[in-house]
């Protein structure tokens, strides 16, 4: 079984302990924190995980933290728990991508379902992250000339057009294309285009530099 982890942040010790124990009783590993600060200082493993977050806490509130998480490079699915059944707040939280908003006391089934949904989202995010890392590594292995050819290939240009645009011979373009196919470890031109589209997306987002 792949390793899974649930982070719990709640300032109330008994709620924290009870949740810890409940998840332990169904063999889910947990790590709990009494504040957002102590959570931030802890080391995080890049494994399947989600975060159970109390809405109102002294210091930084859970709502604010969710808002800032992605900026801090923390992309963990969030499940909110709250002692106040606050509807407008739950709407905001869900809009910002929370998995669920449960009011205390919550039902076991509800929290477990939310956790498993959180793990699914986490798996997707990890997969996406790995794919992007792979693409980034390959792209960076290309030399400047090859990168230029890739950018035209994505746009659907023919070898002859690319040769004219880059002011090189058609043979050179063909050689570079073969090198690209080899470096990118793709078997068909369709695969190359699929990866090329991913590269273009990352270039637009700025997570990849030309």
């Amino acid at each position, binding site marked *: 079984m792949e390793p899974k982890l649930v982070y719990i942040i709640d300032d*109330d010790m*008994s*709620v924290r*302990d*009870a*949740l810890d*124990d*409940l998840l*332990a*009783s*169904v063999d889910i590993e947990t790590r709990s924190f009494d504040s957002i600060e102590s959570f931030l200082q802890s080391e995080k493993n890049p494994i399947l995980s989600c975060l159970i977050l109390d809405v*109102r806490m002294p210091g930084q509130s859970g709502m604010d933290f969710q808002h800032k998480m992605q900026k801090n490079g923390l992309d963990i699915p969030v499940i909110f*728990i709250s*002692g*106040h*059944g606050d509807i407008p707040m739950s709407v905001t939280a869900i809009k910002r991508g929370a998995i669920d908003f449960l*009011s*205390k*006391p*919550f*039902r*076991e089934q509800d*929290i477990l379902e939310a956790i498993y949904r959180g793990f699914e989202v986490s798996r997707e995010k990890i997969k996406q992250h790995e794919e992007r890392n792979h693409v980034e590594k390959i792209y960076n292995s290309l030399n400047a000339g090859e990168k230029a050819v890739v950018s035209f290939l994505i746009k659907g240009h023919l070898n002859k057009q690319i040769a004219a645009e880059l002011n090189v011979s058609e043979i050179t373009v063909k050689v570079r294309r073969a090198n690209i196919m080899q470096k990118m470890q793709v078997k068909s031109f369709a695969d190359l285009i699929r990866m090329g589209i991913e590269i273009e997306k990352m270039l637009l987002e700025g997570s990849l530099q030309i």
Partner: protein
Amino acid sequence: MEIAAAVFYIAVILVGARFISAKGVIVLCSICTLLTVVSFFLTTKGLFETGLINCIIALSALYLTTYIILRTQVAENNAINATYQMTRIARIQSLGELTASIAHEINQPLAATTASADACRNWLMRDKPDINRAIQALERIRRETRRASEVVERIRRLSKNEITQKEICDLNDIVSDTLALSNALIEHHDIELTWNRYDAPLIVHVDKVQMMQVIGNLFLNAIEALQPRLVTERFITVKTFTMNAQACFRMTDTGVGLSEEDIKHIFDAFWTKRDGGTGLGLTLCRAIVEAHKGIISARQNSHGGAIFEIILPCKINKESNNSGA
């Protein structure tokens, strides 16, 4: 001649201001100005200069009076709004906040209790039951239920502390004082109030401030019941009397009235028909009345509207208190 006429105009404005709005006062003032000026030109006898000075003095007096009346009206309106807002805010806000914080205080241990109960069952249902972990969970449940009951105890102590300042007083005075506080509201909403005061003292042993809160609350409810447009008759009748040697208070309104469902639940906590209502006003009223060994009841008036009644034990049964309503 002009001075005499001007004094008369001031009297007109002073009397008129009691019945008409600010705009009306300004119109009235303009008419008086016109009449004063016309009478100045029509007067042929006497010195012209004396006449002119008299006319100017008259107009100045007129404008000053009008200005003061307008200022007074604005101030009165502000006072009415302020009273109304304050009572409502105090009633709704504090109760709202109170319930929210009580809910949070109770939900916290409840969450820990239910999660621990689920955990306990899971430990016992395993292929190899983990008795130790189950017992730990049970211990936590015991601890958390005690915590919840401590919260409840704290709330109870809070409300107990309030019922302390009991004194011997006349129910008639309590009602009078409360009505006096709400006078501005009654007039503002164009409601006709009849106050049938029992002609002998109704001596009760109560917390005066709390009783005023109860009666004031009933009063605000009655005023709200008279708000809807379709209510054409706006009467509130307040009466004090004795019955079986007990002090009684009755308030009748001609408002929207109560359905059978209303009467069944009207004193229940959090039961409300008003948007943004806490559903605690009448619950608190009943708690206070019952803490004074009294009875509060609500029923529908056969002529429409609602009747609220409070019966309190009389402290001293003087001979002057003739029995019967």
